[in-house]
């Protein structure tokens, strides 16, 4: 899957320089960089939620996105939240959320709510999965569980997965290709040969 964006400016501040990247199927790519480096902005561009400075965003692929916050619809039950994106197909059980289908989000812990958001992204049956800081605020056991789920997904669904993280351990644990956003405006630097950045 190929992406090419011109720069992205908010107000007078240019957040991102021109970026082009290619995401092979069945791989995990980690977007690294400190807070405010433009990771979320790049994910939003990829999800079609933002337009670049030329005003275009030709995204047509089905893209599932797990936001930094769970962003569950509070008036819908867990099951209804998942089914907003597509059929549940046993996802809740596979994510350790048995018995929660009829609960409202206010009854869930943050870790459970994140897993519901993850289930929702999977229910969409996406061509590309974007995960924005998926492990933030989770305890170690849950981080391990989520990492295992992402690896299983990579191996079984054969789709590209992108995670935004500031933690190098996440990238290592997921055997991910690492792309770093640095500078102002941020440039995408990568060790991998299939990704290049244009100024």
């Amino acid at each position, binding site marked *: 899957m190929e992406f090419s964006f011109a720069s992205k400016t908010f107000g007078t501040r240019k957040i991102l320089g021109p970026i082009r990247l290619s995401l092979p199927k069945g791989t995990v790519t980690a977007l690294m960089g400190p807070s405010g480096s433009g990771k979320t902005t790049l994910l939003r561009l990829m999800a*079609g939620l933002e337009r670049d400075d030329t005003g275009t965003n030709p995204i047509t692929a089905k893209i599932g996105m797990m*936001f930094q*916050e769970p962003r569950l*619809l*509070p008036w819908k039950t867990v099951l209804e939240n998942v089914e*907003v994106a597509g059929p549940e197909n046993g996802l809740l059980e596979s994510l350790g959320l048995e018995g929660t289908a009829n609960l*409202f989000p206010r009854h869930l812990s943050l870790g459970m709510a994140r897993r519901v958001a993850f289930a929702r992204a999977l229910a*969409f049956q996406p061509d590309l999965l974007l995960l924005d800081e998926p492990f933030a605020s989770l305890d170690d056991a849950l981080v391990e569980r989520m990492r295992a789920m992402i690896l299983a997904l990579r191996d079984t669904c054969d789709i590209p997965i992108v995670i935004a993280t500031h933690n190098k351990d996440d990238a290592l644990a997921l055997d991910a290709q690492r792309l770093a956003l640095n500078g102002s405006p941020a440039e995408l630097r990568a060790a991998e040969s299939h990704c290049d950045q244009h100024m």
Partner: protein
Amino acid sequence: MTVCFEAMVKDVITPVLSTLALLTLWAILALVLHSRYLPAPTEVALAFVSELSSGALLYHGGITFLRVLSAFLLAMTVGTGLGLALGRNAKANRFFDPWLILALNIPALVTIVFCYLWMGINEAAAITAVALNKIPNTAITMREGARALDPGLEDVARVYRLTGWQKFRQVLWPQLEPFMAASVRSGLALIWKIVLIVELIGRSNGVGFQINLFFGQFDLARILVYTLGFMAVVFIIEALAIKPWEKRARAWRGE
């Protein structure tokens, strides 16, 4: 059983006792003062039976109800559309905000007089005048509702490609519903009071007309019959429609 009994005490017994206490206080005051300015509840009850059996109460009450309903639907439709448009468009809001503040502060009586002068003393002018008085309130309430919409949830709707109707029904409406309920409740309370003024000034039927008629005859009992009668109608609408709607809309909050 205990929980059921407590709920019955809260929802039924307490309001009934409260109403009976008010009636008793009224009866005692009427008995003590013994004045034509405060008819006793029994006198009002007799006047009620008389107006009901003659058909006048149902006729005038029905006319007023239709005016309230028409003005309410017009005001809610226009006010909601305007409020949502202003809440979603900062430039339009900046431009039209002074208009809204101005409209909000025009006395109801002035709007009524101008509508009658511009459109003639007819039904359309009466309903327009009432609606114009309510539209700014509805617009301001719904504007706040539109401003309070969570953009993060709209992102969810976009990512998961909800259709326009799905987005409205599943994402926007649940956020707007409390504002709509508040607007409906205040709208009903405001509109029926303004309808009475409109009827008093320029209509030959309706509760407002009857109140004016009995004012001329110094018949306070019949004034109370029509006032309490219409208050009862509004109370029934509140109890049977608005409260259950609010309860259902808030169920997910666990309230």
